[in-house]
C-alpha cells in the first residue's frame, strides 16, 4: 500500500554527508556501549537525589514504561492493537495485592506470580487472535478491558470489590538485605523499577533481534507473505500476546507495591488506563525500544504541565490538542524521530557488513539482497538510536 512506501521515503534520509559507520564488536562500538552504560548508571544515581515527590513520579514513569513495553510488543511490533492492557496491568496488580494481604507473601516474591498470571491471561486473550483480526480483535481486548473492573467488583470478598484493596506500608517494607528502612520505600521502589525497566528493555531488544522478533514484525507488515515463508503465524501471535501480558502484569505488580491501594474505579485498571498506555506508546514511538520510556515520561508529566498552565478541564482540552498536534507533526513518535535524525550521523552495522569493511561507501543501503533492503526500509521507525539500530539489515546480509 502507498502508506508503507510513503513512510519508507520519509524515514530514509538521503543526506549528502555519509553517516559514521559503527561496526558491532569494534573498539569504537565497545566504547559507545560503555558510555551508554555509564550514562544509564549516572542517570539512575542522579535519580536518587530527587525529592521524595519527584522520585515517586520517576518511579511512576518507569512502571508505566514497563507496561507500555508490554503493549508495544503486541501493538507496536506485532500490530495487534490492544485496548485491554489495563486489565493485564490490573491482573498483575491484584495478584500482588492479594498475595501480600491474604497469603502473607513478601512483596518481591509476588512479582513472578504477577508475571505468570499476566502471561496466562495474555495467552487466553491471544487465542481468539487466531481467527479474529484487525479491529475485531481489538474488540476482544476491549472486552477484557471492560470485564476486568466488573469482575473485581463482583468478586469482592476476594478482591475488596469497589471499596478497594489497601496494602498497609508495613507490608511493603523493603527487604532487609537492602538495608533500607520502612520509610525509604520510595527509594527501594525507585531502584527496583529502574533495574526492572533496564532488564525488560534489554530482554525485548534481544527478543526483537531473534527469529521470533523478526517473525513478529513480519506478522505486522506482511502476514500473508510470512506465512508462506513457513513462519507459524498463529504461534507467534499467541506467544506475543502472552509475553506482552507477562511484562504488563509485572508492571502491575510493581504498581501495587508502589501505590499500596488498588481500586476498580478511578482509572488505574479501566479503559482510561488502556488509552493512557496506547497514547504513551504512540507519542514515544510505536515499535521502538526507547519509545515506551519517552512516551511514559510525556504522559506522566504532560497532564501536570498542562495543569500548571491552567486548571481543571482546560488541561484535558490541552492534553487532547497536544496529542493531535503530535500525530500531525511527529507520526513516528519522539523516539522514531530521534532515530531518523541519529541515523543521519551514526549507523551501526554488523561486523561482517560490507560497508563496514570499506568505510567510504555512500549512505545508500548497500545491503545486497531483497530481504535486507526491505527490512531496513520498513524498520526505519523500529530500531532505536544506539548500538543496535541496524539489526534488521544484519539479519538480511548474514543469511
Amino acid at each position, binding site marked *: 500500500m*502507498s502508506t508503507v512506501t*510513503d513512510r519508507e*521515503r520519509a524515514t530514509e534520509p538521503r543526506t549528502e554527508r555519509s553517516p559514521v559507520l559503527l561496526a558491532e564488536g569494534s573498539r569504537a562500538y565497545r566504547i559507545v556501549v560503555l558510555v551508554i552504560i555509564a550514562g544509564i548508571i549516572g542517570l539512575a544515581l542522579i535519580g536518587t537525589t530527587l525529592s521524595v515527590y519527584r522520585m515517586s513520579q520517576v518511579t511512576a514513569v518507569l512502571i508505566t514504561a514497563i507496561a507500555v513495553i508490554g503493549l508495544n510488543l503486541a501493538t507496536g511490533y506485532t500490530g495487534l492493537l490492544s485496548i485491554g492492557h489495563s486489565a493485564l496491568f490490573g491482573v498483575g496488580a491484584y495478584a500482588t495485592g492479594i498475595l501480600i494481604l491474604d497469603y502473607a507473601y513478601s512483596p518481591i516474591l509476588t512479582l513472578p506470580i504477577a508475571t505468570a498470571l499476566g502471561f496466562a491471561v495474555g495467552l487466553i486473550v491471544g487465542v481468539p487472535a487466531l481467527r479474529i483480526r484487525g479491529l475485531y480483535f481489538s474488540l476482544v481486548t476491549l472486552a477484557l478491558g471492560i470485564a476486568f473492573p466488573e469482575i473485581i467488583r463482583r468478586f469482592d470478598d476476594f478482591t475488596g470489590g469497589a471499596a478497594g484493596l489497601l496494602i498497609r506500608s508495613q507490608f511493603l517494607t523493603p527487604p532487609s538485605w537492602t538495608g533500607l528502612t520502612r520509610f525509604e520505600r520510595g527509594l527501594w521502589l525507585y531502584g527496583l523499577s529502574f533495574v526492572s525497566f533496564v532488564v525488560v528493555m534489554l530482554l525485548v531488544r534481544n527478543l526483537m533481534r531473534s527469529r521470533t522478533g523478526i517473525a513478529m514484525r513480519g506478522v505486522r507488515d506482511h502476514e500473508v507473505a510470512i506465512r508462506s515463508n513457513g513462519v507459524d503465524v498463529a504461534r507467534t501471535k499467541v506467544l506475543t500476546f502472552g509475553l506482552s501480558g507477562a511484562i504488563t502484569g509485572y508492571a502491575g505488580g510493581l504498581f501495587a507495591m508502589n501505590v499500596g491501594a488498588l481500586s476498580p474505579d478511578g482509572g488505574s485498571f479501566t479503559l482510561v488506563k488502556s488509552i493512557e498506555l496506547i497514547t504513551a506508546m504512540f507519542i514515544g514511538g510505536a515499535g521502538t525500544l526507547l519509545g515506551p520510556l519517552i512516551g511514559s515520561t510525556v504522559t506522566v508529566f504532560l497532564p501536570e504541565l498542562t495543569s500548571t498552565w491552567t486548571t481543571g478541564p482546560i488541561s484535558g482540552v490541552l492534553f487532547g490538542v497536544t496529542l493531535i498536534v503530535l500525530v500531525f507533526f511527529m507520526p513516528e513518535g519522539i523516539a522514531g524521530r530521534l532515530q531518523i535524525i541519529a541515523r543521519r550521523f551514526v549507523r551501526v552495522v554488523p561486523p561482517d557488513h560490507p560497508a563496514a569493511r570499506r568505510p567510504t561507501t555512500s549512505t545508500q543501503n548497500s545491503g545486497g539482497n531483497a530481504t535486507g533492503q526491505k527490512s531496513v526500509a520498513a524498520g526505519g521507525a523500529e530500531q532505536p538510536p544506539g548500538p543496535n539500530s541496524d539489526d534488521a539489515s544484519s539479519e538480511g546480509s548474514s543469511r
Partner: protein
Amino acid sequence: MSALEISGLSAGYGAADVVRDISISVPAGEVVVVLGANGAGKTTTMRAICGLIDRRGSIRVDGVEIGSKPADVVNAGVSLVPQGRGTLGTLTVLDNLRVGAALRRDRAAIEEDIERWTSVFPVLAERVDQRAGTLSGGEQQMLAVARALMARPRVLLCDEPSLGLAPRIVQHLFATLRDINSEDATSMLIVEQNAELAMDLASSVYLLEVGRVVRSGTPASFREDTELRRAYLGY
C-alpha cells in the same frame, strides 16, 4: 489537433518524481499505446493525468488545459479504466454503471447508455443485479471499461486491460475496443506491458523506461526493432 496532448508531465509519490517530463500526443479518433516494463511508471502517468496524484506539466484536451481534480478530468472528457479494474465489488453491476455516469445529468441518455453497453457486453446484461465482486476477472474488466464509457469520454485511458485475462478474453476485449473506437471515434490511450494485440489498433506507440519516454514511433517501427520486439512484444 490532438484529442489529448500531454507535455512535460512530471509526477511522483513523495520527494522524488517517478515520471519526468513525459510528452504524449493522442490524435483525435486514434489509438495510442504506451509500452513499458513493470515499474516503468505507466500507472503513475495515468494516475497523474486523472488527478489522483499531484503533477506538473500541461495536459490539454482539444487544446484546452484541464484542471487537476479528478472531476475536472472527467468533465473534460477523459476516463480511466484503472489497472486492476477498480470494480466496486459490493455494488451491483447496474450501480457500477450508474456511478460511471456520476457527473452526468441527462437521465434519459444515461439509461440509453446502460442499454447500449450492456448489449455490447452481453455478460453484463445477464448480471445487472449481481454484486460486481462475484464476477470473473474478464467480466470485471468489461464492467470497468463499460463504467468508464458511461462518462461518454472523448479519450478513454486503459491501464493494462489485459492483465490476468485469458488470451481469448483479451482478444474479445480488444475487438470491442476497436469497434468502439471506430463507431464513436473515441480516442484511446492504452498502456500495456505486453502489447501485441494493442499494437494492432495503434497509430503510434511510446516506450517508457524508468519514468521517461525513451522512444516513440509507429507500430511498424517498433516491430522492426528486434530488441524491442523481444522485450515488449514477446516474439
